[in-house]
């Protein structure tokens, strides 16, 4: 009886989440990671349901989405999936901004920063592959961009030939629904574990204090998630997502989702090579950031340089999004 009781005591309890965390864990900026995680949970649930109705073939993909869209719940589900993905992209940019402004990549949090970069890249590929598997005009043009850009890489011709052909949608679907979720968990688990291990990054220029609990932080995350994803529900019902006509080769009539519009603008000026060079430069810049700005504290000159550089890049990106958003689509491909 005593042994059984002591085993029960060793088991996990909800009260175990009551460990102390700094008070600023309740601030919106420090809840963003949790809100994004809630969003990923919603994407997994809606994605799993939609996968039951999806035909991952060149001939059947768009048709199966069309069939799903005939049902109000089907169209709403698809709209919610897409709008949640859009919301996550926006929240990830906010999360990244908060980390850069507070210099949370410095010191012992350097390794976690690298896992975060991995998660950022995975999320972008998630968004991209989700656009492709619809296999409408937008998806097809995105796929063609990927193929032609891949062919520019060393040995890219061989990889592109693997992506071509009738199995294209199936391979993108497997990437979107199996490979990427697995990779997400591979990067997410150490990301979360390291937050627990290192503790929440401190507020700049303030002494560390433990005055609230992790369970309070979770409640706050849920509290922020309700209005945010409630708004996503409203947007899904007010502006249901579109499905472009069946893909036609030889024309470029769509523009990519807003998050890729700065790349699209660069492609206008530099050609397809911009799709390879720009992401590589961004990822390298993010990787070397903790080495360049290693001094703790937001008052150091290097940190100010980092913050101002980030703000200028953000302003240019917003300007490019607006510019490309109001100009007609441009032809880039040789298809």
């Amino acid at each position, binding site marked *: 009886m005593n042994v059984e009781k002591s085993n029960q005591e060793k088991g996990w309890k909800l009260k175990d989440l009551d460990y102390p965390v700094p008070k600023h864990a309740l601030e919106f900026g420090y809840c963003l990671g949790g809100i994004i995680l809630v969003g990923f949970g919603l994407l997994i649930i809606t994605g799993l349901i939609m996968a039951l109705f999806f035909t991952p073939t060149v001939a059947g993909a768009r048709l199966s989405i069309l069939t799903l*869209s005939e049902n109000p719940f089907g169209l709403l589900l698809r709209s919610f999936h897409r709008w949640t993905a859009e919301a996550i992209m926006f929240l990830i940019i906010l999360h990244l901004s908060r980390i850069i402004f507070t210099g949370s990549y410095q010191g012992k949090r350097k390794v976690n920063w690298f896992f975060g970069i991995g998660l950022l890249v995975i999320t972008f590929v998630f968004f991209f592959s989700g656009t492709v598997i619809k296999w409408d005009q937008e998806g097809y043009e995105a796929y063609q961009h990927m193929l032609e850009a891949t062919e520019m890489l060393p040995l890219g011709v061989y990889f592109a030939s693997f992506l071509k052909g009738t199995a294209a949608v199936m391979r993108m679907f497997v990437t979107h629904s199996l490979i990427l979720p697995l990779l997400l968990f591979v990067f997410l688990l150490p990301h979360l574990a390291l937050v627990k291990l290192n503790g929440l990054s401190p507020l700049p220029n303030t002494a560390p204090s433990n005055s609230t609990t992790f369970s309070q932080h979770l409640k706050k995350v849920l509290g922020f998630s*309700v209005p945010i994803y*409630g*708004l*996503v529900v409203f947007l*899904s019902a*007010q502006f*249901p997502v579109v499905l*472009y006509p069946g893909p036609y080769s030889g024309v470029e009539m769509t523009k990519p989702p807003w998050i890729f519009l700065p790349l699209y603008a660069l492609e206008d000026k530099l050609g397809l090579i911009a799709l390879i060079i720009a992401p590589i430069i961004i990822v390298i810049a993010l990787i070397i950031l903790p080495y360049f700005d290693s001094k703790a504290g937001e008052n150091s000159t290097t940190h100010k340089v980092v913050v101002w550089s980030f703000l200028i890049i953000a302003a240019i990106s917003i300007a490019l999004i607006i510019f490309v958003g109001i100009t007609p689509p441009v032809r880039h491909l040789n298809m």
Partner: protein
Amino acid sequence: MKKFYFTVILAAVLLFSVMGYSHENHNKTPRKVTNSSIISTRSDTININQKTSEQIKTEQDFETIRQEVKSSSVFIVFKAIGLALAIGGLAFVYLRRRNKGDE
């Protein structure tokens, strides 16, 4: 505890026997599995109908479906739910913060 196990086993036996019964059909004749028959194995008529509806759907404009579905009551209800969650959630967060500030 024995009662619990007994109930679970009885429920499982009843469930599986019903499933077994529904699959018992001696009138079936073997048919070759083809691209069209794999869509539905119930009858050839359904396959023909599905082919026709597929052709129609390919020709049908998505925007027409979207506008029709968008005006359904489901969308109106979810718009209301979404707005209620967004405004209610924001108010809840704001009020809690204000109350904490008052303390």
